[in-house]
């Protein structure tokens, strides 16, 4: 069968963010799959070193759009551990409440994207309509739909009053009934099951070797959930079940994510019932004493690891952010061995990749000229011709062809 390489990305309708995969195909079968990441690199780790701790709280929030609270809480926990701050229980409860609301918003978003990847746009429309309920609640609680900015070093910035608690419980009741409907759809819709089961198989032994985290690992029967193993925030006082599944494939991941949604609703009602009274923040010093800390957070996609090293000034010395997608992307190559091309989008979407988390470093323009300067279209055009001419490929006759065309 004639083999050819299909480039998918960096711009491709199936991929929400720029990453590029080269897939060696023979007919419809995928023979080899290689990923090239780093397109969404913004230099957050270097930028953290140039900003104060207060500014970094908002910077780490912008690592990723859908798990912004996860990254900022993870960073803030590490800084509080170094500074030895004991944040009030009410702040812990509010932080966990916003974290679970974000998990609901992220899983519903994933449910819609998965539906779209397999061509089931109705599921996308309905899942994202119901997601608006939780987005409005988050806007009411924290003042913004996506980057909530509820975290600060030493606690949270906004309190929650009684009628907000009533709104949240009403919304959670409605969402619970909608999620139960989606569980029934996932279990009974023939074409959806056909497209999801048996796809992207990941055996339990591969999970440990390749280091998969989050729903991707739990769908292969590995019971690893940072909220249970290494409890932070208010998770120590909540009782919830870690959802695992033994389908080892994309269908299992769907069921795990839906199960986690139902668990989140239970947790939120527990939080709302016994949220303790008291202050919501503790005075934090501007200069954090020297030290280092590793903090983990169970983001919707898996386990976030932040390593923060401070040197006594008001700027951190080193911030290392390891997002869950970096661990999960290694498993995609294994899952796609001799599957067919039609499964590629849904397998990539199944680990719920968030590439803005994964790439975090500076893209620098024009380093050769010392100072950064803006290049107009013509400079860029002529620059590229010189650059190629220096390498022996002369595009200049292209200019003549262009002029002839433009005349």
């Amino acid at each position: 069968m004639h083999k050819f390489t299909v480039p998918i990305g960096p711009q491709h309708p199936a991929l929400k963010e720029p990453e590029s995969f080269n897939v060696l195909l023979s007919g419809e079968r995928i023979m080899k799959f290689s990923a090239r990441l780093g397109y969404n690199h913004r230099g957050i780790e270097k930028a953290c070193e140039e900003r104060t701790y207060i500014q970094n709280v908002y910077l780490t929030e912008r690592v990723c759009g859908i798990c912004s609270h996860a990254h900022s809480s993870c960073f803030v926990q590490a800084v509080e551990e170094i500074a030895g701050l004991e944040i009030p229980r009410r702040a812990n409860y509010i932080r966990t409440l916003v974290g679970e609301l974000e998990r609901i918003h992220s899983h519903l978003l994933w449910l819609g994207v998965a539906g779209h990847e397999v061509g089931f746009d109705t599921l996308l429309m309905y899942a994202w309509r119901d997601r608006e309920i939780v987005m409005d609640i988050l806007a009411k609680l924290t003042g913004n739909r996506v980057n909530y900015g509820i975290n600060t070093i030493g606690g949270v910035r906004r309190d929650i009053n009684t009628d907000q608690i009533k709104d949240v419980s009403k919304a959670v009741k409605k969402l619970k009934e909608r999620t139960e409907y989606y569980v029934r759809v996932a279990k009974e819709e023939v074409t959806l099951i056909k497209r999801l089961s048996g796809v992207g198989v990941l055996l339990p032994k591969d999970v440990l070797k390749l280091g998969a985290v989050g729903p991707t690992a739990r769908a292969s029967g590995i019971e690893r959930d940072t909220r249970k193993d290494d409890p932070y925030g208010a998770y120590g006082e909540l009782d919830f079940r870690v959802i695992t599944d033994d389908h080892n494939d994309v269908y299992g991941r769907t069921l795990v994510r839906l199960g986690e949604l139902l668990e989140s609703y239970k947790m939120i009602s527990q939080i709302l019932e016994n949220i303790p009274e008291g202050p919501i923040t503790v005075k934090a010093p501007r200069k954090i004493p020297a030290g280092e800390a590793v903090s983990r957070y169970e983001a919707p996609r898996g386990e976030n690891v932040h390593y923060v090293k401070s040197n006594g000034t008001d700027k951190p010395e080193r911030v290392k952010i390891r997002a869950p997608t970096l661990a999960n992307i290694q498993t995609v190559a294994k899952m796609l061995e001799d599957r067919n091309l039609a499964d590629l989008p849904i397998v990539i979407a199944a680990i719920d990749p968030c590439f803005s988390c994964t790439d975090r470093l500076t893209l620098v323009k024009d380093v050769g000229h010392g100072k950064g300067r803006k290049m107009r279209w013509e400079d860029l055009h002529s620059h590229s011709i010189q650059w190629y001419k220096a390498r022996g490929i002369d595009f200049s006759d292209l200019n003549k062809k262009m002029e002839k065309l433009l005349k």
Partner: protein
Amino acid sequence: MTKEEDVQNELVKKFDFLKDKVKIQRSRRIFADVAAQDLRSVLDHMIKNMGFSFLCTITGLDEGSVFGVVYHLSTKDGMILNLKIRIPKDKPTLETITEYFPSAEAYERELMDLFGMQVEGLPKGSRYPLPDDWPAGEFPLRKGWKSKTSKQEGGI
């Protein structure tokens, strides 16, 4: 005797050069300093019979005259042991640990791209995370390196 102290005693019993190098910061967090050449033996022992079956990540540090590399390993029940080694800046070579953890490849490529360390034994693959036309010799995460993005484009 908490779990952390068990791990500490076993490490110190097995490797006497770790005498006072292992310190417990809080529950489920242990920091240990190791010399670069003993890293593999400690790693091997920890993975094989101490249950550290999961590599969270590898962090690179630029400590002025020396590069620090911290290996974060974790067990099934959430304890993280951070092994820190120091390698000289003029000869920054490391051996890869991809035979224990295939997922370490991405973290080690980050060390190579951002700090300029040399990791031997890495399988062939594309570089991560910097683009291919990144000028050679520029290592962004080193302390002395300043980003050129002007204030207008969001630099501070």
